[in-house]
């Protein structure tokens, strides 16, 4: 039932419940969804699938979200893909770190699926205009 032309969203999160929840709701909201469990997978998937947007959890095992973001933003083929950072760390400096790493937007968990979809649609609209 998902439109093959619908935007492809790469959801990167090591916490399965959260990853699948967001993936399920994004599909429910009409997006195509790919998933990655860590930084390495995120970078591989991004290069392979060239998603329209990446939801990137920052605290990841192995290569973390900041490193993965830096790599994707450093590559010509992926640097245009908007990356929305997701983090449970609300301590000061977390969002700054994310921006410095190259994230285009920053969402603090907990984030209701509905709010997340609003943010995804806003970022996609902004990217399309740019």
């Amino acid at each position, binding site marked *: 039932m998902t439109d093959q032309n619908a935007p492809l969203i790469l959801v990167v999160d090591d916490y399965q419940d*959260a990853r699948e929840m967001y993936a399920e709701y994004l599909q429910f909201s009409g997006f195509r969804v790919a998933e990655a469990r860590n930084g390495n997978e995120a970078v591989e998937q991004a290069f392979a699938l060239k998603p329209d947007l990446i939801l990137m959890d920052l605290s990841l095992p192995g290569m973390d979200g900041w490193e993965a973001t830096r790599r994707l933003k450093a590559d010509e083929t992926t640097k245009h893909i908007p990356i929305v950072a997701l983090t449970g*760390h*609300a301590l*000061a*400096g977390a969002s700054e770190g994310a921006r410095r790493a190259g994230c285009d937007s920053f969402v603090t*968990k*907990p984030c*209701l*699926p509905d709010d997340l979809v609003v943010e995804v649609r806003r970022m996609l609209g902004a990217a399309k205009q740019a």
Partner: protein
Amino acid sequence: MNSLSVRTASRAPAPVVSPSARLELLEYYLAHHEDLSRCASASLEWLARHLGIKKSICLAVDGESSLLVGITGYGVATEDVELYSHPLADRHDPLVATIGQSQPTHFRTMRVNGDSARTIPSTPLGPGPFTAIPLRAGRDGQRDAVGLLLVKGPAPIASDVPWLASALAQKIEQIRGRGSLAEETRRLRRERALFFTIINSVTDPILLTDTEGRLIVANARAEKLFAASEEESEGRRRAIELNNMLFSAALSRTAVEMPSEARELLLVDPNDGSDLLFEVLSSTVEDPREGTGIVSVLRNITDLRRATEQIEENYQRLRVLEAAARAERDRLNLIIDSVADPIIVTDQGGATVLMNKPAEELFTLWSDADDAAQRTVQANDAHFSSFISGLLLGESGPGEIRRGEIGLMNPMTGAPIPVEAIAGKVLTETGELTAVVTILHDRREALERARLYEQLKKASDELQMRVQSATMELATQNELLRRQAIELEQASRLKSQFLANMSHEFRTPLNAILGYTHMLLQGVAGDLPPNVKRQLTRIDSNGRHLLTIINEILDITRIEAGKMPMQITEFDVNEIVQEVMTELDPVITRSKLVVTPRILPEALLVQSDRQKVKQIVVNLLSNALKFTHQGGIEIAVSYGRSDRMASVGVTDTGIGIAPEHHEKIFEDFRQVDDSPSRQYGGTGLGLAICRRLANALGGRITLRSNLGEGSTFTLTIPAEAPQ
């Protein structure tokens, strides 16, 4: 009367003397028929008295020795007459020649046509003309005269003189007739010679003077002072003159004052002009023939006086020295007595010469001393004596000081007195030992002081040790505290880190819970029956509450860790009040309370963190709404010009807070009601966060409230950003 008539008669050579006067003389001759000398003297006095003849001499012919000798004189020096003798051998001698004459012969100096001058024979009458009348009895012209009467003065002589010469000649012949004259004369001469030898042998001047001070008899020494001869030098004569004057004056004073008293008389030595001091002893001699005379004996006391003065001077000097010595001794005594330590001076034999009061207390007994005291004094004496004898026996130089300790006792109390004896020898200039001075220094005080000092030192050492150990302990404690502080800080940091991590860990599952609940309510799993929806809503609201708690804990942790970022901007406090009311409008509506904003007519601009200020005001208003059941709420904005502080006060008519709980409510996780069944919800972190935020903004939150009287919470922040 009588004398007056005689003087008148003397002017003429005629017989002027009355027959009664002649008779008087003859009667005298009869009365003293054996004494030639006295008869002759009376005759010459008679001549003086009745005829005014001032100087006359009676000479007698001594057949045995063929000499014309002096019997007596008037107005001339007696001894001159007595010693006078003239040889009769030369019949051509003018004076001898007169003996053969019957008439008087007048002698005077004359010069005849350049012939050698007929000189006047030398007689005791001295120079000047005189008349020699031969003493002849009757008219017998065959025999030589028995003697000569020499009368001083110019010729002619009164006829009474030859009469007297005749009368006297008869008397002499009469006496001679008994053959006494020569013997008498010799005896007298011997006596006189002896007399003069005696008085001349006396070294003190002896004089006989008349009452006028005229010299009658003087011994050789007196003559040197008072009699001037022709050949004396001018200086000597003057000295003698002066001496005579001085002597006369002294005599007249003697006569007036006390005659027998010895007087001092200062005369001049005619030889060298030096002063001679004499003591004059005068006595009056009454002589019917010679009249009143004064015998004076002068004793040369010049040397005596000098010696006396010397002695006096020495005595005065001695007195001064004695006074000085006494003063010195008094001063010494005073000094010795003023010394608190006993001082004893002993002589070379060890006997005590002097001691001061403190020493007396040790070595002398008082009147009512008991046996014990006596024994003590004796023991003290013995101790001291053995110490001194040790010094006296030992060979030592003048500067040597002997020291020793003597155990004495106080005779009054019997208490032992340990003393240090310090003794020094006192030597004379020749090195002879005269005394030993000993000072006894009471050592009790020194010993006591030493003991106290020892105690003090001990105490001080102890104290020092204690201080040291205390200091060390303190240092240890400090170090411990420092480490604890470090540990606490670390712990605090760890806690904050832990809480931050925990809140993250809480959020992850909570994220899933809230997410799926939300998805279900959104109809991801299709339409849900109403009861399921209601149950999902419960999950959702509890999940949100949990999220609030977690967020607030995170806030506190952030503030405490100093990681709360501040974003200072300029804004109007009035706006904040309106925004908060808008935000909480649903709650206000639900509470059915009237909330009255009392904002200022003009903008109240402050420089602060807008978000934080709003957060605080939201919290305060939420609380007011939560704890107020009826009445109203006021939000009032104000500005303090004096301290330049902006305030937002939230006043409710709620349950109020007892003063004892005013502080408690600002503590973490606290409400007034802490019980599990408490009526009001909330984390109990709201006011704790508000206070921390207000402090972080440089402001404060104050509370004015009483139980049942409502509350006013006021946020006060500086209008200008903290520098």
